[in-house]
């Protein structure tokens, strides 16, 4: 007796056939789209504005604290402007969402999907190609902005950056791309799920707003439920604070913010809750070398990358199951 098999047949040929053709086309689209030009203009303007004002603030105190001047360009806020990294916290998600919210649904709406998938490629290559193109585009944009900032810095401060500063800025660049990666994967997921690009964009922005505005409050109240303070013992306070931090870190923005702190302020020795006795023997105010700071952000960075991969995998599974017909 033969049993009907519902198992998937093994496919032949590489799932990445045609990947680079997709990447090239999508990147060309991104780099020539009006939408991206507006955002690039916005981020460049922000960079110039904040760095310029930061530079004047730094110059006035440079003789007192001559170290890490270039990192301060990113981090120093000069009233009434916030610092550049404050802007990055919401410009990056915005750019990431703009890159992906119509990635898949526009193919349906333009009736191009069936035609493209009837070429000798797998769906894998199409989705992966779109995702990689988005990551590369972000990398290009941020790398250009970083160069702009360093260029402005050299002019404004009159000194070249140290290799330590360049190294920290590069790590920050990588973290920024993956922070964007998380939000791009969210937008990509919604672009697979929702046929209307506007719906996908709104859903992405809603999720982002939820994490930026409400998640902090949610984390606080959840922490007080999970680890309530009954008597007021220090252990109880500590437990609640630990829970709160852990929950907050579910939000990608929190992870990114902590990475910014560790990378831009070398004197920061820990990103978790530190008890006084743990600092015994440590030289306070002494900056950490880059390698130590990287160790600090390592869990955060892998967290961002893991979140990106999980979200992409979800989008991938959903896309594989979709009918080509709209």
């Amino acid at each position, binding site marked *: 007796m033969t049993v*009907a098999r519902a198992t998937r*047949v*093994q*496919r*032949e*040929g590489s799932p990445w*056939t*045609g990947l680079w*053709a*997709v990447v*090239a*086309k999508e990147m060309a*689209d991104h780099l020539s789209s009006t939408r991206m030009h507006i955002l690039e203009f916005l981020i460049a303007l922000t960079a110039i504005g904040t760095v310029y004002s930061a530079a004047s603030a730094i110059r006035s105190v440079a003789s007192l604290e001559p170290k890490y001047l270039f990192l301060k360009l990113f981090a120093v806020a000069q009233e009434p402007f916030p610092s550049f990294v404050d802007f990055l916290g919401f410009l990056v998600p915005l750019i990431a969402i703009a890159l992906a919210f119509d990635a898949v649904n526009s193919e349906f709406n*333009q*009736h*191009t999907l*069936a*035609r*493209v*998938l*009837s*070429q*000798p*490629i*797998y769906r894998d290559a199409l989705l992966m190609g779109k995702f990689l193109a988005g990551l590369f585009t972000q990398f290009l944009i941020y790398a250009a902005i970083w160069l702009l900032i360093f260029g402005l810095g050299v002019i404004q401060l009159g000194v070249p950056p140290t290799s330590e500063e360049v190294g920290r800025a590069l790590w920050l660049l990588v973290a920024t791309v993956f922070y964007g990666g998380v939000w791009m994967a969210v937008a990509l997921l919604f672009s697979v799920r929702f046929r209307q690009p506007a719906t996908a964009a709104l859903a992405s922005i809603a999720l982002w707003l939820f994490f930026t505005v409400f998640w902090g409050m949610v984390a606080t109240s959840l922490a007080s439920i999970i680890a309530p303070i009954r008597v007021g013992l220090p252990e109880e306070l500590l437990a609640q604070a630990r829970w709160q931090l852990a929950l907050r870190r579910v939000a990608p923005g929190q992870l990114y913010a902590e990475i910014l702190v560790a990378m831009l302020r070398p004197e920061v020795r820990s990103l978790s809750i530190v008890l006084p006795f743990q600092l015994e023997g440590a030289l306070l105010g002494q900056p950490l070398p880059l390698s130590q700071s990287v160790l600090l952000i390592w869990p955060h960075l892998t967290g961002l990358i893991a979140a990106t991969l999980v979200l992409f995998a979800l989008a991938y599974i959903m896309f594989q199951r979709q*009918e*080509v*017909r709209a």
Partner: protein
Amino acid sequence: MAKKDAVIETRDLTKVYNGLVAVDRLNLRVYEGEVYGLLGPNGSGKTTTILMLLGLTEPTSGSVRVVGWDPRRYPLRVKAQVGYIPDRVGFYDDLTAWENLMYTAKLNGIPRREAYRRVDEALAWVGLSEVAHRPVRTFSRGMRQRLGVADVLIKQPRVIIMDEPTQGLDPESAREFLDLIRTLKKEGKTILLASHLLHQVQAVCDRVGLFHKGKKALEGTVEELGRQVLGTSHYVIVEVAEDAQRLAEPLRGLKHVQDVEVLDDRTLWVKSLQDVRPEVAAAVVQNGGRLLRLDVELPSLDDIYTHYFQTAGEAQE
């Protein structure tokens, strides 16, 4: 080597969408070099069949072979040799015709120089060279459809599958499009065409498969279908000066004649299995009729289709 090779072959191909049987145990064979028409009302499973042939939809059961390969297991090999023009074929509106085709060429892994050549050739072939560098946004429906043909030509396919290719085209563009199909056939391509525009299918297809509720109900040349469905393959129209009624009986007695219908006082319809004009003419004259006109018509796919679905509908009730 056998002259007739099946380029497309399905065995008991079935697709079920949550309980709804879209394609039901389909056995289809399309041979090298022929133009095959999939015909059927909306929702009869034509598009679903095509998607399974290309490996774009998983069959629920049954097997498929296209150009010798199973599209489930070797989708890339199948898709490298089969061109597909979906219904309402779409292009990237902001890219030019040329850019759209270059993308297709790259997806097919065609080297750049060769791609340039093929794209230019394909655009010239469908008569779009003039507008090659205009964004597709500015193209009319007919131009897009022709661009669809250029798009499949890039990969130099053995088989071309078209879903409702003339839908939404004006009569003139539709006619031009049918000419393109004929030329493709002359160049030796095998063509599978899904449509419900009957006279167009009749105009280009060598064989036709009539789909009904996911099943292939009938198959053959238009003449064969006529015999199967209507029991008739020829209509002879007889016009006489007067008193047509009187001629009906003698004409019924002729060989191959199946039925005679008196339309009015001057016109008769003779249904037969062959062209019986000489016999009819002789009989009219013998019986003292004054013949004014004698014509033969083949039953159109329209008649066959209408008749088939009427009786199929009645059989259901």
